[in-house]
């Protein structure tokens, strides 16, 4: 089985596992224990990891707040900024193609009386900057626009949105989960106030992430998870030391290997796209071809029922155009203007560090075989193929 679902998660790099291991057993201390060596050791490891994460994102170490993952980081950013916002700012601007870990906390604000603007995207998946500018008002507390989309891989022009948000006194948050380790991320150059990250998308462990909080912006956050005062009061709870160490190590590896790896993976992705067009035919790319993550390819297949396509695909692990939780089509693909059938007949390929040229060849042939076979058994393949380019 060829794993081509690196947007869902990635395997933990063996070098990362190696770095984590001592912190489960011998160096098991609580990073907030101040009175003995066990605590100091854990604290040191956490601070080293904080510097490693900060280095990869272009932040200062004190600007990194560890969380249990990106869902929590998004929640801290959105619910936290909302809770601390002045009473005359009760408006949040986001985009229809955001991950549900952004949309849900925004909608939660909507349910408590906030105004929520979910901006549409164009057929390539990009948000219109003029529309962003128009949406932000003096009553806007927060703008949240993701850097790289988890389904179609397109990169939003976050750096150009920053001045628009700041001109109105709003905070800018970006969910940069899918970008980190795949393309350069520099929070200072982006000009964001808040940015979310997750270790398991870059060959680190699951259940650990971080929120970048620009210096000074912590005063504009009211932490939803409070307790022992960890993470400067922004996120209570005993630190996940092995996980955090793993996140740091993963950032360290990514920083060193990203330029070569991005080129390699990008070339494989281009090869996959070419082979699918040649061998399967009747395929179209969902989302802009650029700017896009190098390892992402999202295609819709004409003249085919998506569910039977996916049931037929036994040799590759890819993700479907269905929302992960149901047979409903993905809200991202629907936001591009696809109809339901086309959205469901879409495949998301996520290439990664372990992907080889042989994998790509095998994947393309397998997809072509299954597509041919499902089309052959269809009474309407020709008819549907003609109308499915939407």
């Amino acid at each position: 089985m060829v794993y081509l679902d690196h947007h869902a998660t990635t395997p933990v790099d063996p070098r990362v596992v190696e770095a984590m291991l001592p912190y489960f057993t011998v160096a098991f201390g609580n990073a907030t224990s101040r009175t003995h060596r066990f605590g100091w050791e854990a604290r040191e490891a956490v601070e080293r990891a904080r510097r490693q994460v900060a280095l990869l994102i272009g932040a200062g170490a004190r600007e990194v707040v560890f969380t249990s993952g990106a869902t929590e980081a998004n929640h801290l950013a959105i619910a936290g900024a909302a809770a601390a916002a002045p009473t005359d700012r009760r408006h949040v601007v986001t985009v229809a193609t955001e991950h549900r870990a952004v949309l849900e906390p925004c909608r939660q604000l909507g349910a408590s009386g906030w105004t929520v603007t979910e901006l549409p995207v164009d057929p390539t998946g990009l948000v219109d900057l003029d529309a962003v500018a128009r949406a932000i008002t003096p009553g806007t507390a927060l703008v949240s626009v993701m850097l790289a989309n988890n389904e179609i891989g397109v990169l939003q022009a976050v750096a150009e949105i920053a001045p628009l948000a700041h001109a109105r006194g709003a905070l800018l948050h970006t969910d940069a989960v899918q970008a980190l380790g795949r393309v350069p991320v520099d929070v200072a150059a982006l000009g964001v106030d808040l940015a979310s990250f997750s270790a398991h998308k870059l060959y680190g462990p699951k259940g650990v992430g971080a929120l970048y909080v620009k210096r000074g912006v912590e005063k504009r956050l009211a932490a939803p998870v409070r307790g022992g005062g960890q993470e400067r009061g922004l996120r209570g709870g005993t630190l996940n030391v092995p996980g955090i160490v793993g996140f740091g190590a993963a950032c360290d590896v990514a920083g060193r290997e990203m330029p070569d790896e991005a080129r390699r993976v990008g070339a494989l992705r281009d090869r996959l796209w070419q082979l699918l067009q040649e061998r399967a035919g009747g395929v179209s790319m969902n989302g802009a071809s650029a700017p896009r993550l190098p390892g992402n390819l999202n295609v819709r297949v004409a003249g085919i029922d998506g569910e039977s396509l996916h049931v037929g695909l036994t040799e590759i692990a890819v993700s479907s155009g269905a929302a992960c939780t149901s047979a409903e089509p993905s809200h991202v693909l629907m936001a591009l203007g696809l109809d339901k059938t086309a959205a469901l007949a879409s495949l998301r390929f996520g290439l990664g560090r372990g992907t080889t040229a042989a994998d790509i060849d095998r994947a393309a042939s397998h997809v072509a075989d299954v597509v041919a076979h499902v089309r052959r058994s269809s009474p309407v393949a020709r008819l549907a193929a003609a109308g499915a380019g939407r």
Partner: protein
Amino acid sequence: MYSAAVLDRVRNPRRVGEWPAGQTDVGTGEAGTLDDGTTVRIQVRVSAGRIVEARFKVFGCSASIASAALVAEWLEGATLDEGRRLTPGRVVDALSLPAERAHVARVAVDAARKALDDVTEKAERRP
């Protein structure tokens, strides 16, 4: 999520195909619409009151492919009356279809009944 009976029929379909609908010993039935997401075409070739061969084509989910394949399987060798006694319930049971997919078994059975009606009508029209 799906039973082995479904997966096998999706991955190794037998009896996929079509004959020219005009042939006098061939009955053709279609049911379902693309808007509903499932359309099935079943064809039967009849000789001396017995279905000697059946073919199907499907646009739809894997449950619909498996349903049409199973219906075609059952029709082969059956008399026209036996073919008419096929019910969606039997298809659902044989394939252990999840409840939310049960309606596609009805589409397959409807197509089969129309195919049987078609070939019967053709036989009656013959001098």
